[in-house]
């Protein structure tokens, strides 16, 4: 990589796939976050937590080159962020795909490879071998030729993971990929993401409201709240002291085995706690 390595620490480990230095993002006078330093290394899974409007999605948009930082610098796989970066895979949240979507599972996955290219694509030159490999990676080979609309939400989401992986990305951005999935599908999707990063060294930025499904796999947490943030391991960030300091008010973090419940966070992030409560209910059932 052409970029000079700044500090000694970085020499020891692999170059970060994603690196933000003193980065800020604001809309007009409203600052979502500022002074953000974040390095995500190959194979690392960083969960991005925080309420609505704290700038989680804007962070992803900035990485995707769809949004300019208002200050600071960012490097994605060694270069400045740019639109249509092939080194990034993107997993969106699950949405119902209706019967007016004439795509089979393999067509959705193929879009991750050449959906952005002009023209119709010469039939003989479609890389179906890569599509098949991506489908195999997520265990979706059996329904490769099924219409997407006939699949369950969990199966559709599995196809979306394959779509994100088919381009062999070095950075995977997951934007609330677990939303409106049942628990077993949530587990499947997180396991697929975890396997990918361990087997291929893909760095992962995992934006989620619900920390619990990803908790066992998270290396570090980036917690955004009210223009401020906190980065660290789960233990460093998800404790009462750290979050109380972040929110500037008393926040209670309850940990019970593999489950985390954040209680008392200010109103605008209350929905963060809510899914965790559901989670607990599900466990109790």
């Amino acid at each position, binding site marked *: 990589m052409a970029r000079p390595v700044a500090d000694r620490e970085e020499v020891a480990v692999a170059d970060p796939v994603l690196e933000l230095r003193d980065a800020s993002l604001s809309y007009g006078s409203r600052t979502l976050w500022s002074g953000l330093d974040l390095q995500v290394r190959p194979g690392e899974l960083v969960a991005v937590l925080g309420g609505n409007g704290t700038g989680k999605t804007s962070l992803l948009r900035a990485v*995707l080159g769809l949004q300019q930082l208002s200050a600071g610098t960012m490097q994605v796989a060694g270069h400045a962020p740019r639109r249509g970066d092939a080194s990034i895979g993107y997993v969106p949240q699950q949405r119902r795909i209706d019967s*007016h979507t004439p795509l089979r599972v393999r067509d959705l996955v193929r*879009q991750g490879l050449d959906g952005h290219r002009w023209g119709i694509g010469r039939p003989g030159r479609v890389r179906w071998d890569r599509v098949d490999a991506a489908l195999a990676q997520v*265990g979706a080979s*059996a329904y490769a030729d099924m*219409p997407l609309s*006939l699949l369950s939400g969990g199966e559709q989401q599995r196809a979306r993971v394959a779509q994100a992986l088919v381009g062999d990305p070095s950075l995977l951005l997951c934007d609330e990929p677990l939303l409106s999935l049942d628990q077993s599908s949530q587990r499947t999707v997180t*396991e697929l993401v975890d396997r990918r990063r361990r087997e291929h060294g893909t760095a992962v930025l995992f934006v989620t409201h619900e920390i619990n499904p990803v908790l066992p796999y998270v290396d570090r947490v980036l917690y955004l709240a009210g223009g401020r943030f906190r980065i660290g391991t789960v233990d460093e960030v998800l404790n009462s002291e750290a979050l109380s300091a972040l929110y500037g008010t008393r926040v209670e973090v309850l940990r019970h085995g593999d489950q985390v419940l954040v209680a008392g966070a200010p109103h605008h992030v209350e929905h963060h706690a809510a899914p965790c409560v559901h989670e607990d209910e599900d466990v109790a059932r």
Partner: protein
Amino acid sequence: MSDVWGQLFDFRDYGALLPLVANSLLAGAVLGLVGGMVSSIVMMRDLPFAVHGISELSFAGATGALLIGAGVVAGALAGSVVAALLIGVLGASARSRSSIVGVLMPFGLGLGILFLSLYDGRAANKFGLLIGQIVSVDDPQLTAMLVSGAVVAVGMLVLWRPLVFASTDPEVAAARGVPVRALSIAFMVLLGLAVAISVQTIGALLVLSIICTPAAAAFRVSANPRVVVALSSAFGFTAMVGGILLATGSRLPITPYVTTLSFAIFVVCAGVGAWRQRHGWSRARALAPSSRVAEPATT
């Protein structure tokens, strides 16, 4: 009864009549093929109502041109492209699109009726723009229609992959660098061109039978995007050319023949689709769970 039948289907002197409809057949064939392509995207983007709105403004443009003595083709094109752009720019979300179409449609139809009432030319032309012509396409018209058709076809082929991506999954397409918004506007222009051609053959009120029904039928029987587009174009072609061939000889507009053929194709496809849901796709689905349970292997 046999009298009605005789009016509907009359193949006397068919050989002599056929050369007279050669222009219409050519225009119909192009419209059928192009309309089939366009309607696939119309279905993916949920635009049938917008198509209807565009065709009413195209009707207003065509009748306005008729009134001031400009070319009907140019008027139809101007009206529909303006309408398509308005809907594309103002109607980004489904809700705002529906409301802008709802506002534009009666306005366009009203304007068209005003222009028609003021115009005192041939009666055949008058209602032809609304409900379809008794086959008559002159040479300059044909040229204009063929050129527009070619522009739409080439445009669709060039935009195809990113357009399908942006139509089926705008969020991910944007993340992959696809210019979602620009594509949406570009497609509206192509759609406007296609609607303008349709208005002049099957009439403003019935454009949907060529720019909606063929793809709706194709979507019932396949989820393979290539198959869907091929079928949709084949259905559009069959309805248009078949309709014109059946109408030749009778003194009726081609419209009912085209719409009936188009609808019949849809009914057959809906039946096949229902059967396939039950027997074809679901069997493939039944095979899936065993492998699903086994995956992912590492856990």
